[in-house]
């Protein structure tokens, strides 16, 4: 029995390395997303409910990840927190990717004065610390889910725009583009058929990396009292709340949302890495060498 398991474990790494990581990551993500989708149906949660007779219980069968300061189930709130944080992360990253991708593509392909004006605009906004701008946006819109999404999205498109532009700029003078242009391909065609496939992986990578960053931003806003209303379960709020419990010995209140955050982020990153390797034929060529 043990021997069999061992052989199987030893055989695993012989699979294509990318495949295994991607499978694990995919499974983790699928479970996480499924839990997020099903939670409201299977385990409804009253966000404002507390139970002062059940505070800081260690993990048990009834509460697999224990309870927090106010007697709320940590695992259930972590799932709801993940829901909210993923929502914030994905939407904010999408907002950022759309704005950043559009601005970067415009600047990188059109060049000239369009490029100059757009890049000065980016410079101007980029010169202010994101967190500060984010605080301003949330302070004006008043803390809420939408305000946090906008605050993160509107402050994080700059790097995406620059990356897309610089990638396009460095591609512009590559021989295969020259070949395509001299072959009579139109601007749109060069952009969509030749430039986009090269830029997309990096755009995707930037977007993926932005999801945890968006969650980070949400946490930082919570830290300053400007995130989601603090009694709602979000990973940021929970990690913040749990800090106090940590010193009082209730490590599970902070550890569980923290682990959920790390595991999901890692899975997301692994999956994008795999996807990119898949997209880029030259990488596959290298792997076969």
């Amino acid at each position, binding site marked *: 029995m043990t021997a069999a398991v061992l052989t199987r474990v030893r055989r695993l790494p012989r699979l294509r390395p990318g495949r295994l990581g991607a499978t694990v990551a995919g499974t983790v993500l699928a479970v996480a997303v499924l839990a997020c989708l099903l939670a409201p149906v299977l385990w409804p949660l009253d966000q404002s409910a507390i139970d002062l007779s059940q505070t800081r219980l260690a993990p048990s069968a009834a509460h697999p990840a224990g309870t927090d300061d106010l007697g709320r189930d940590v695992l259930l709130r972590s799932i709801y927190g993940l829901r909210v944080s993923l929502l914030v992360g994905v939407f904010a990253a999408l907002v950022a990717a759309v704005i950043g991708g559009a601005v970067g593509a415009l600047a990188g392909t059109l060049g000239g004065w369009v490029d100059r004006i757009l890049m000065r605009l980016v410079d101007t906004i980029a010169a202010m610390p994101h967190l500060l701008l984010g605080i301003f946006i949330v302070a004006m819109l008043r803390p809420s889910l939408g305000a946090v999404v906008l605050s993160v999205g509107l402050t994080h498109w700059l790097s995406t725009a620059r990356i897309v532009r610089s990638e396009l700029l460095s591609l512009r003078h590559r021989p295969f583009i020259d070949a395509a242009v001299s072959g009579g391909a139109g601007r749109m065609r060069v952009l969509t058929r030749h430039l986009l496939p090269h830029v997309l992986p990096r755009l995707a990578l930037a977007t993926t990396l932005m999801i945890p960053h968006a969650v980070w931003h949400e946490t930082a806003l919570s830290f300053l009292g400007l995130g989601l209303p603090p009694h709602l379960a979000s990973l940021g709020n929970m990690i913040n709340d749990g800090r106090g419990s940590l010193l009082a010995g209730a490590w599970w209140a902070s550890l569980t949302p923290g*682990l959920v955050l*790390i595991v999901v982020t*890692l899975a997301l990153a692994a999956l994008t890495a795999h996807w990119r390797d898949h997209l880029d034929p030259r990488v596959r060529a290298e792997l076969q060498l």
Partner: protein
Amino acid sequence: MSRTTGVRLAAGTALLLALVACSSPTNPSGAPADAPLIVATAGEPDTLNPVLNYGVDGAALIFDGLVSRDERNHLVPALARELPTVSDDGKSITARLRDGVLFHDGTPLTARDVVFTYQAVLDEKVDSTLRSDLDMLASVTAPDDTTVVFTLRYAYAPFLQRLTLGIVPAAAFDGQDVNKAAFNRQPIGTGPYRVTSWTPGDRLVLAANDRYWGGRPTNSGVVVAFVPDDNVRAQRTRAGEFDAAELPPKLASGFDTQAGYRVHKTPTADYRGVMLPMGNPVTGDVAVRRALNVAVDRAAMVNGVLGGAGEPAYGPVPPSSEFAEPAVAGAPTADPAAATALLDAAGWRPGPDGIRVKNGTRAAFSLMYPAADSLRKELALAVTADAKKIGIAVTPEGLTWDAITPRMGSDALIMGYGTPYDPDFVSYKLFHSDFAGQGFFNPGSYASEVTDRALRDGRAEADPARRKAAYATFQRQLATDVPWVFLTYLEHTYVVRDSVNGVVPRVEPHEHDVANSIWWNINTWTRRS
């Protein structure tokens, strides 16, 4: 990415967290006995000028008022030779100054300095919020160098309690704008300590004033460290950096079992409660307010939310005050049966979803709390849970203050304040109908003729027995009308090193930072080496 890396990572994180949880102090006090005492607090003053609201309730370390307070918060003379005398009509107060008091720069204190200090507060060009507290003061004059006469617009019984304000030297402000004077960062006072340096965001370094009129401090100086984040302050306390630190109860409780430290829970007049606006159709109904008042489980809040550091509150006058009316105290635990009976009798009947309804109005309202204040958040959730049990749907909303203020007339709010010195302070403006709807003064527009009259009698009457009677009436009327559901009085918790002698906790007001904390008498503290 393999599964093993994930596992290793999780294990690493767990290890790190475990270290946080069970780490022990590494450097127990090895400080020599004559080293300065080090205290840590969250609240850094914006300025060190009493005129601009620094340490106005005394114990300001750098300054003295005409009077100060002893360990029972009774007034004792300070810069005044004896307690100032009040004229028969209550409108004229005369203070005679102590002889031979020197400011830190060596100049002698005169009546001119006292007059300057109070006139600066009254000056409209000076950005002082203290002016609101001294609206009874018409003028202040100095007939001679050692006498100060305060003239009031109307008789105001607790006026002597306002004389704890620190006195500043007039000469230091010659030809300067009080708002922008260098004095505000490098102040000169008469107090037991003089300022060596102030690094905003880091620390305030004070050195003993050897010429202090009240006797030279028993230690060489005080360093006040400013650490706004509670968890960071707790960690640095654990690392052994501080002789005394203010910590929230749940973080302080970790030091109960730690050798070398004592946890002090000081009683306060610092209350938390739910302001219920009259302009809301649900909270405007006195039956709902009374039902909520008996439905909240104050004992559970004290234990669960405050970690035991507090006591149930039933009104704005703390039990430690001589003006407290014991009759208003109810049961510390919830009485849902009595609450539902009140609601039933008033016609609030349970609807299909369990929430009560009366004449088509659902028993539902929003309860706002400042989002940055985790204690008020937890109290809001506790009230929400208790209200649900009697069929009232409360929606907690965590907001910023600028979002809260415009809604205070129609939505409930977790509020908190309180000073132990006189029942007139705060309460007059909070519950008198003259101030209905004026910002934080009576935001719920509560109006009762009985309350108004009692409050007015309380400030006008000089006779202590009649004042006590007036405030007893006031407290009973509040308990009947329930414009607020008072929840708890906090206990401020401090962690103090065992080797420090002379700690005498006294009842504290809401505000406690550099001034007016457990270290109010730090000039008499000593350290065993």
